[in-house]
């Protein structure tokens, strides 16, 4: 049987880099074929070529055995290829139907013929169990539902081949499960799926075959049943990696807490409070995992700890310091609160400045970096070189601007700076988001060693696997509230997942 899609020796060069180097890839009818690789491995470039957004320098594309030229997404759609981008391209103030027909509106004279479109969409939605009502406004839909609208749009345009670019990035664990069910329904119906991801577990779960890319080249294509996560990881990274750094879980109940929040409220711009009656303790020598989908108050919580945000009600106590005293970020740093923000570029670093200048951000006023207000460049650079060496920050020198670092190396820079302050309380917010397997491994073991050193670590993450692998205790946040607490996270995986999706919401 002819494969539905064949890519033959696709090569795409950008100035200074070959993004795709002789990539060949086939997709059989009715299979889920995953494209696995780290950031920058060339996955997205390849799919943009397939979808007509980029032109290959060499190579050819065959759909159902016929050579096709994809000049634009229109050609791709005409050949039955649909793409769901990582960031949805929907108009929030339009209905589902309006979004789906957008750019290809069924018109009679000057009037939009919504009825036929609606009927078609309703049918597709029920055929594939998408459960989307065509009259709903996009802004009323959850992220998972919006993604299903994107899929509906591809199906409505007659897609036989679906490209899904990192589709689970913004879904809760339970939404993921539902999403995989939808994929299976589509496969049964004879559709074919290209699934782009850098997450090993889900690739192992959903795929029939897996093609691994590294630095623009195909490392290999394997059957799911003939491989395991470990093999995939080493194909992806090019060396053996420790997949899951799991620390021995500890509990230090008999000590007094390093930090306590009591009945903390933070009001928002809108009616809903950003943080609602939060009470929690963090003990020395533990990692407290704060699970939750983005935007449920975790950033605000981190900001309260770091002194960047003043609570409207309630108290924050760090160590023995007086909770009633006014605090600023400066005082919090002096009290030993260090913070790895999710916003690495906007908040965590001054990109235009050198690595060494970034490394002294928090402690530039202390010995040996300065004395009586005068900077000691020799000491600063010695320190910078030591940190770069110790934390394996890949860079030509300590004096290059931070903006030239890759994401993983920038994060290592921030992490090394925060750890160098010898934190008593370390807040790590989405510390491994968007990073490669190798860098993730590195950062996880650093967080664990901070804990073992006796400091309190608050790990804020939307990645449930990360939370479960590292945390000694877990708190789930949903809409600014603590929705669930677990002293034994491993056995509560399902409840934690449900709580992240709002199942235990009080309202």
């Amino acid at each position: 049987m002819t494969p539905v899609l064949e890519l033959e020796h696709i090569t795409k060069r950008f100035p200074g880099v070959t993004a795709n180097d002789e990539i060949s890839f086939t997709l059989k009818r009715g299979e889920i074929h995953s494209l696995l690789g780290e950031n920058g491995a060339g996955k997205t470039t390849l799919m943009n070529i397939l979808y007509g957004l980029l032109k290959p320098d060499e190579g050819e594309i065959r759909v159902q055995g016929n050579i096709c030229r994809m000049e634009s997404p229109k050609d791709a759609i005409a050949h039955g290829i649909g793409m769901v981008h990582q960031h949805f391209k929907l108009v929030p103030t339009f209905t589902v139907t309006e979004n789906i027909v957008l750019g290809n509106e069924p018109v009679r004279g000057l009037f939009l013929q919504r009825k036929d479109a609606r009927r078609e969409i309703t049918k597709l939605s029920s055929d594939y169990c998408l459960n989307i009502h065509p009259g709903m406004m996009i802004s009323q839909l959850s992220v998972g539902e919006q993604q299903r609208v994107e899929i509906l749009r591809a199906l409505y345009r007659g897609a036989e081949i679906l490209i899904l670019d990192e589709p689970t990035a913004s879904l809760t664990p339970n939404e993921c499960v539902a999403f995989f069910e939808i994929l299976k329904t589509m496969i049964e119906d004879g559709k074919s799926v290209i699934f782009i991801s850098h997450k090993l577990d889900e690739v192992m779960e959903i795929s029939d075959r897996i093609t691994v890319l590294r630095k623009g080249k195909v490392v290999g294509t394997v059957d799911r049943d003939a491989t395991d996560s470990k093999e995939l990881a080493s194909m992806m990274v090019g060396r053996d990696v420790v997949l899951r750094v799991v620390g021995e879980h500890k509990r230090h109940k008999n000590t007094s807490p390093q930090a306590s929040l009591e009945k903390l409220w933070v009001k928002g711009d809108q009616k809903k409070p950003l943080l609602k009656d939060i009470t929690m303790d963090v003990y020395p020598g533990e990692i407290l995992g704060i699970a939750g989908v983005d935007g449920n108050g975790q950033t605000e919580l981190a900001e309260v700890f770091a002194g960047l945000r003043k609570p409207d009600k309630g108290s924050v106590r760090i160590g023995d310091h007086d909770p009633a005293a006014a605090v600023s970020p400066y005082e919090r740093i002096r009290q030993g609160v260090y913070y790895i923000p999710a916003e690495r570029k906007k908040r965590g670093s001054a990109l235009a400045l050198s690595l060494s200048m970034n490394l002294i951000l928090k402690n530039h006023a202390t010995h040996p970096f300065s004395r009586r207000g005068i900077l000691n460049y020799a000491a600063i650079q010695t320190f910078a070189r030591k940190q770069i060496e110790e934390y394996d920050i890949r860079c030509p020198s300590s004096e290059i601007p931070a903006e030239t670092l890759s994401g993983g190396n920038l994060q290592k820079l921030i992490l090394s700076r925060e750890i160098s302050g010898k934190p008593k309380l370390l807040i790590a917010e989405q510390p491994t988001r968007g990073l490669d397997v190798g860098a993730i491994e590195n950062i996880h073991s650093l967080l664990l060693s901070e804990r073992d050193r006796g400091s309190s670590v608050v790990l804020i993450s939307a990645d449930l696997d990360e939370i479960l692998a590292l945390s000694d205790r877990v708190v789930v946040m949903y809409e600014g509230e603590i929705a669930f607490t677990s002293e034994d996270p491993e056995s509560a995986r399902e409840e934690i997942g449900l709580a992240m999706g709002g199942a235990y919401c009080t309202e």
Partner: protein
Amino acid sequence: MHGIKDKLRKLRLPDDFRWRRVAIPVLAVLAALAIGALLILLAGKSPLTAYRALFRSAFGNRNAWAETLVKMTPLLLAGMGTAVSLRARIFNIGAEGQIFMGALGAAAVGLFFGNPPLIIGIPLMAAAGFVAGGIWGGIAGFLKQKFQANEIIVTLMLNYIAIEIVSFMVGGPWRDPVGTEPFTARFSNGTILPIILSKTRLHGGIIIALIAAVVIWWVIRYTTYGYRITVTGVNPEAARYGGIKTGRLILITMFISGGLAGLAGATEVSGVHRRLLESFSPGYGYTAIAIALLGRGKPAGVTLAAFLFAALVIGTNGMQDFVGVPVSIVFIIEGLVLIFILASEVFQRRRG
């Protein structure tokens, strides 16, 4: 599409940074002069004669150099002031008002401190100018820090107030009773900046200005305060996150920024006019903004830019006096230089 991009990339100047930094402003000036030549031609004059006059007036002899350096003094000081605030991402466009207040402070010392010896009189006069200008800048800093008042609007409005205060003082309370026009009496001898090049108007202010530029360079590069300014300017959110007390920083920075502009006013009235008068500044404070931008907020760059603008002002004045090129063309050339340099800046930044 990529073909065009690649070609553009090749057209770009090589990545040699230092070379580029000098070449770009020079090219911009040449381009502005070329267009200016066209306009001079349209006005019926010979561009060659006109430009010869420009060059001679700015650098032709001892006196020409002296005049250029006299002009450079307030431009450099006020330009440094604006540059300091710019580095902290504060848009202080109130150098003009701070110049006037600085002049007022200097006048207070010059008029009412008896006749101190130079060694006491000059520092006292300069300090009074710095503090007066600094307070004027500090007001805007305080309002920004305390009430998030937009410093652009506040400093602009403070300009008018400062100019009117000086106007009132020289027209009323401090008016020289025997003067024909609204100006004060002559400052006491001990508070007048001495001439440093005989038979010219070149006064000691240029030395003060150059020392100030070096001090600011050192402060920015080698002190924790300078580090904080730089971080805040590059990324205010990172500064706050890093524990830098940005409110206090704004206040101090605006004081120093205003102080430098105040020093510009003080040296100008003491060194050139030797008394306070109503309109001693032809908009130095506004030219200072252009100079700070051209110099990219860096002391060396600002010094060069101040020199360039001083030469341009003196030179174009000469062009007007000796060749009769209309004043408007002179302004057009000055404007063009600015536009070209800023445009080249944008061009350079758009890499990749």
